[in-house]
């Protein structure tokens, strides 16, 4: 059973700037919560509270019922897969070695086997891609490798920080499909940060629309569409629908 993620009354400040203002959110076991908003809305800060890359000034963050402040940071982070926008693969390591990062950090002898399995699952056969370096892969392939890395040590929490944003449309479509397949095969709880409502709609069970450090509304897509809580949410949905219609028009 993958863990439940909970944030309660979380406030984050950078100097005099308040990035998150008394925010609460819960991701149920095996659920995927998308945090949608503009730059500076606080979505990345909230994501990073779960692996303690950001320390809240106030509030409580729980992973599997345990306060992250009292957990050992290193242990906590090794349990949580993290996929940044540009993959964050180490440029001087091969793909196989990159993917084996966490098993290796954990000192596991079967790190290479775990990495090969994770690569296979993400559609990058280890035999073909394992020995290559990140710069020898396409953007989509690099993100697949980054996702494989985040899952290689059987992590059951994934933090996806704009992980699909920097890709061209076709690679992105393929990757989203691959990710959905992964979600069906593996049990993990995930948080996705994105500025693209379409992407959120495709992947997430629940979408939190964020603005200026607060959550405007947190609900499934249908609720956002049918009963927007604020004008901002309504406008956001409207814009996304208009864009989709332009593309769908004959």
């Amino acid at each position: 059973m993958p863990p439940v993620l909970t944030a309660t009354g979380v406030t984050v400040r950078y100097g005099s700037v308040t990035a998150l203002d008394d925010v609460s959110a819960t991701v149920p076991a095996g659920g995927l919560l998308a945090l949608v908003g503009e730059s500076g809305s606080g979505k990345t800060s909230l994501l990073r509270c779960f692996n303690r890359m950001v320390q809240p000034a106030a509030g409580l963050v729980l992973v599997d019922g345990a306060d992250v402040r009292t957990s050992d940071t290193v242990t906590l982070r090794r349990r949580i897969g993290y996929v940044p926008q540009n993959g964050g693969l180490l440029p001087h390591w091969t793909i196989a070695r990159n993917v084996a990062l966490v098993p290796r950090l954990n000192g596991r002898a079967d790190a290479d086997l775990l990495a090969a399995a994770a690569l296979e699952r993400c559609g990058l056969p280890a035999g073909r891609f394992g020995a290559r370096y990140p710069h020898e892969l396409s953007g989509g392939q690099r993100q697949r490798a980054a996702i494989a890395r985040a899952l290689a040590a059987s992590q059951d929490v994934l933090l996806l920080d704009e992980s699909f944003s920097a890709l061209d449309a076709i690679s992105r479509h393929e990757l989203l499909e691959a990710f959905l397949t992964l979600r069906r095969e593996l049990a993990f709880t995930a948080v996705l940060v994105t500025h693209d409502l379409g992407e959120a709609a495709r992947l997430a069970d629940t979408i939190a629309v964020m603005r200026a450090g607060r959550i405007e509304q947190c609900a499934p897509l249908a609720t956002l569409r049918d009963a927007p809580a604020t004008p901002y949410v309504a406008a956001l949905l409207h814009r996304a629908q208009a864009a989709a219609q332009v593309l769908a028009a004959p």
Partner: protein
Amino acid sequence: MTNRRTGLFSLRLLAAFAVTALTVAPASAQTRETAQGLTPTAPAARTIIVASKPFGESYLLAEMFAQLLERAGRRVERKPGLGATEVAFSALRTGAIDVYPEYVGTGLVAILGDSVTAAMRADPRVAYAHVATASRRRFGVHWLPPLGFQNGYAIAVRREIATTHRLRTLSDLAASPARLVAGFTSDFIGRNDGWPGLRAAYGLRLGDVRPLAPAVKYEAIGRGAVDIIDGYATDGLLAKYDLVTLEDDRHFFPPYEAAALASARLMRDDPGAIAALTALSGRLTEAGMREWNRAIEVDGRAVPDVARAALAAAGLAADGETARSVSLGAAPRDGFWPFFVARRAETLRLAAEHMRLVLIALSLAIVVAVPLALAIISRPRMAELVLQALGVVQTIPGLALLAFMIPLLGIGTLPAIVALWGYALLPIARSTIAGLRIADPDALAAVDAMGATRRQSLLWVRLPLAAPVVLSGIRTAAVLTVGTATLAAFIGGGGLGEPIVTGLGLADMRLVLSGAIPAAVLAILVDALLAQVERFVTPVHLR
């Protein structure tokens, strides 16, 4: 696995440098121990260290001292060409050397900082008595009885200028409307018994005063680049360039009688050696010295040969020799190439010595600067302060740093290594910090976010990614150090600076080049070698 090897390479490199440093360092420590005479042996068996300052006459007198001591059965180590007065004197005072030739006037003004009295000007013996007593009392060092000749400052002009302006004395010069261009040594320009005092005493006015290195001032006046220089009364080059010495008719310059200056320890431990040195007292004349200096500076005779001849002429021929048997015949000077070829074994030895200095200093700089940079990288203000402090070290002129080190570390290899180490710190620390800062922030964040410890992130990510930049800093430091290491010779640290210093002192360009050319070649080789290493540690994605 190749990728693993690449990742850890920078560490291996550090380890290798550290091991080199550790294996070589004890050898240098040992050298120092013997050099300082700390080994508990009988006084007679102890090696006596004879030094000189870096000019012809000083080399010659030191060599004469050395030969006298060897004939008296002493083991002698020669440390010719030590820095200048401050370097040689602090080496003597601290017991790093045992004896070197010095001049009473220099002792009075430059060492004791006293002024010249009328009685001293009238009678050199008064000056000697004062300097000998005060030096013994203040520094515990001993002036042996004067050697018999004076080598004071000689203000010299080109003959045509002396003729045109009717100059015979310094008073003539003061009265003349001629505005001459002077090329004075920086020593002379700065000393109270030099240009400032002389100008005040005579009311002299010159067109311009240019600081010139001792080695080039004769060349400069010979080519007409300057009109007037400061020389020494017994310089052999005065005759070579046909210069006229202006008489010090007001007796401004204090008496510059030459004498052996001996350390407290030599005086205490080895009266026999003192007696052997004293045998030379009163036996040398100005005319004689001018001739011997000329043999060295103009004819290019080897210093040991001239010393033997000079001793024989002074009635101190070695057993089985007569003054006549060692008289100097004609000695045609070799051209550069035969000279260079004949010296090749010595050059190789010096090059090895040079590289040993460079390697030890550089290794120590790496093992200090890289961890230092790692320690301060996350504190930008601290990092800036440390880099500024290291920058200050960089601005201290090489010779000054070396002179400053003598009271702490004596002379020889050790202070040279410490000074070179100090100069190498900045480029290495700066490049390490720069290298660590450019490491891909995405990659670093990902590794942190996935639970790497600080150590793992440093060893697996930061250092390997920074390696090429760190290496380029090490490369800069290495080339710099190969160049700077030539200064080591000024404090008896050896290396390729030795022929350069000696060559400058003896106005022998062949000697200068036989040090300077191999040093330049070494710098190029070291740079090329490290360029290869740099390519090797460059992460695969940057190649």
